[in-house]
């Protein structure tokens, strides 16, 4: 039998959330083991679109998102690379007057959070962003939102955690998890044995299993956003984009390639997904009305990922209501890349300080247990 691997905290899942939690804990001097089924940052966190935006998030997420914004600004100091992070500005486009009204509503509602949104009517949009298609009637602009390269950023969080002293174990999935009254005991499939008083459930789209095991089932479903990238093109996009009400979002990287997303793909199995022909063709057909400069250019690659969605499209963040020592951080509904580093820090604070600096009550797993509690109190 292998010797026990003892630590104060075991983090399950080395996506951007788990890896940044491990990094924050290690920086505060805690012994952490980061356990990853596959490779660090190779799931959602490594294959996402790369949008690093606050604009458009629910108001409840904005305090954490603002904190994440700060962390993103200090990326090289934290993880050793800039991850191609660029505050390009983020343009949320409206295709109808009703959509533009919705953008105005969001601007008003979020004003206290410091996003500094600028509303652009048709004329202002045309003047400032002539490459946007005629179909857009207006936009909301967030100058300090931007984008980054998820392939580089997310694994770098795990690398930084390792450099700060975290033990990082890849190729270690499907562990048997128990609690002996004091500590969590994990047996990995690869034969390792681990013990720790804290367990962080950062297993992304796969996190519901562990929650259910500890009596907290959540109605999480997997979704698979479709992604596509073009050949390198002359530089045009001086902002990354999104579309009110959903649509094809796009950004251009320094190398010239445009990355686009929109629509949903399908799961190949529990871990792998593809964008699917209908989503790909829909992007190829519809992108041109929003981004006319794409006409005649070519898409060279498509992909998707596996992301967890709860019915209210809000994540679960915070302590378990059934098992002391268990913390959750999962289910980011296609928007956890930007906020992930702040969630990791918040989870670390729950371990170290018993509370996080930003409010997270809205994301408690409790919200899925109301009916269950009523039933059992009866």
């Amino acid at each position, binding site marked *: 039998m292998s010797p026990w691997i003892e630590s104060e905290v075991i983090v399950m899942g080395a996506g951007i959330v788990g890896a940044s939690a491990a990094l924050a804990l290690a920086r505060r001097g805690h012994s952490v083991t980061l356990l990853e089924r596959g490779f660090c940052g190779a799931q959602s966190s490594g294959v996402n679109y790369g949008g690093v935006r606050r604009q458009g998030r629910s108001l409840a997420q904005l305090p954490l998102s603002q904190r994440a914004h700060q962390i993103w600004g200090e990326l090289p100091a934290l993880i050793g690379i800039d991850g191609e992070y660029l505050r390009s500005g983020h343009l949320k486009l409206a295709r109808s007057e009703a959509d533009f009204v919705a953008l105005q509503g969001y601007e008003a509602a979020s004003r206290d959070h410091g996003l500094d949104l600028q509303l652009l009517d048709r004329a202002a949009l045309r003047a400032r962003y002539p490459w946007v298609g005629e179909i857009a009637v207006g936009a909301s602009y967030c100058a300090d939102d931007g984008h980054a390269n998820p392939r580089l950023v997310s694994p770098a969080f795990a690398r930084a955690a390792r450099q700060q002293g975290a033990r990082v174990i890849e190729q270690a999935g499907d562990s048997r998890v128990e609690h002996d009254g004091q500590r969590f005991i994990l047996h990995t499939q690869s034969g390792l044995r681990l013990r720790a008083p804290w367990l962080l459930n950062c297993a992304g789209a796969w996190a519901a299993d562990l929650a259910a095991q500890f009596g907290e089932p959540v109605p999480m479903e997997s979704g698979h956003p479709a992604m596509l990238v073009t050949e390198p093109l002359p530089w045009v996009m001086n902002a990354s984009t999104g579309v009110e009400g959903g649509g094809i979002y796009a950004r251009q990287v320094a190398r010239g390639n445009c990355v686009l997303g929109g629509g949903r793909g399908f799961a190949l199995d529990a871990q792998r997904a593809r964008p699917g022909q209908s989503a790909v063709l829909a992007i*190829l057909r519809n992108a041109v009305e929003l981004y006319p400069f794409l006409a005649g250019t070519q898409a060279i690659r498509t992909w998707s990922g596996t992301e967890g969605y709860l019915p209210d499209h809000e994540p679960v963040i915070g302590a378990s209501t059934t098992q002391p020592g268990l913390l959750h951080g999962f289910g980011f509904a296609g928007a956890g890349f930007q906020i992930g580093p702040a969630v990791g820090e918040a989870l670390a604070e729950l371990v170290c300080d018993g509370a996080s600096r930003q409010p997270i009550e809205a994301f408690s797993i409790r919200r899925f247990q109301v009916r269950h509690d009523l039933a059992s109190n009866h």
Partner: protein
Amino acid sequence: MSAVVIVGAGPAGIRAAQTLVEHGVHPVLIDEASQGGGQIYRRQPANFTRPARQLYGFEARKASALHQTLDALAGQIDYRPGTLVWNAEHGALDTLRDGHAAHLPYQRLIIATGATDRVLPVPGWTLPGVYTLGAAQIALKHQGCAIGERVLFCGSGPLLYLVAYQYAKAGAKVLGVLDSAPFSAQCRALPELLEQPATLGKGLYYRAWLSAHGVPVHQGATLERIEGGQQVQRAVWRKGDQLHDTECDALAFAHALRSETQLADLLGCAFEWSTLNRAWLPRRDQAGRSSEHDVYLAGDGAGIMGADAAEMAGERAALALLQDLGQTVDPQRCRTLEKRLTRIGRFREGLEAAFPFPEHWAEQAPDDLVVCRCEEISVGELRAVVGEGHWEINRAKAHCRVGMGRCQGRMCGAAAAEIIAHCSGKALHEVGRLRAQAPIKPLPFGVEHDA
């Protein structure tokens, strides 16, 4: 009911189509090329009139027979030339023809997508005037033009001598053939090669012909680098301890072939490691059945066996498909085909021994050598990423973009795997294979399609 579909109108695909038609099944036959024939029997454009003998040499009879077969199938099959299959999922293919996308459900599918050159880069390989052996041959066969006036042929594999011979016959000045395989390897391989005396005979003939016509043939000679400003000017090569250089205006090189396996991958076929091919290949039984009940594999797309084997494998896969549809097929014919394929398989092992993979290539590749030309990734950049612990090829790709560009790794994938394996100390098969992602080839925005 949806159709039986064959992708690839080369020797394998055409024979498969013929066999199906003979049994009353009328397939759809799709090929990206505008004319049938596949790689080896590629046809010339309609306005060219070179005789078959001149185009295909010894293989002229086989080429004409195959072309005639395809022509005779007109009206009995739904032949769709100029049609790219860019994706496959859930029992349907996605095609692109003249800017129009379509969705084609299949009942059964035969994948006969053939092969392309396996390229092991050397410094200077991205200079204008440098081609793969296959591309050099296509230029000659298809367009009737040579890649240059003074051409050097390098690398290894049977195609090396063949293409050099074809160039010399066509009147180009062939400066020499540099075969990285040592003569001793070819002697050792003789017993297996004798399995196919006719093919061996042709190979020996090309070499003898080249020598007799004053074309220097160097064995155990490796290309070190290619030099030039705007264009290839010189090749520097090594034989033993001696460095040589040869002035040339064009150069063709490759080390054998690699299978086009993306479709099988997209369709979820199980893959297995082939030591012989140094590649992960879709698994198939002797008859060509894949791990998926409705997908069959034939020809070089499922492992390099050459054109004759491709014809037989196409026929055999079609017979298997017919059997699985409940038709009676001649069991004797199935056995004969399998036996012949086994024999060619042994010959193929001999070829691999005769033209062994240059084992030291990865070790010797300099850091500043470009390995991935689409994304301009150097060997050094790839090694750096491997040094950080990324030994799985898709992870290496995620970290340094090797294989992420336009060609989706079909040009650089094999070389990248060699570098990663050598640098990480892992066995080549442990490094894995680049996962196929649609589109198999680039797809335009604004494409029209029937929703």
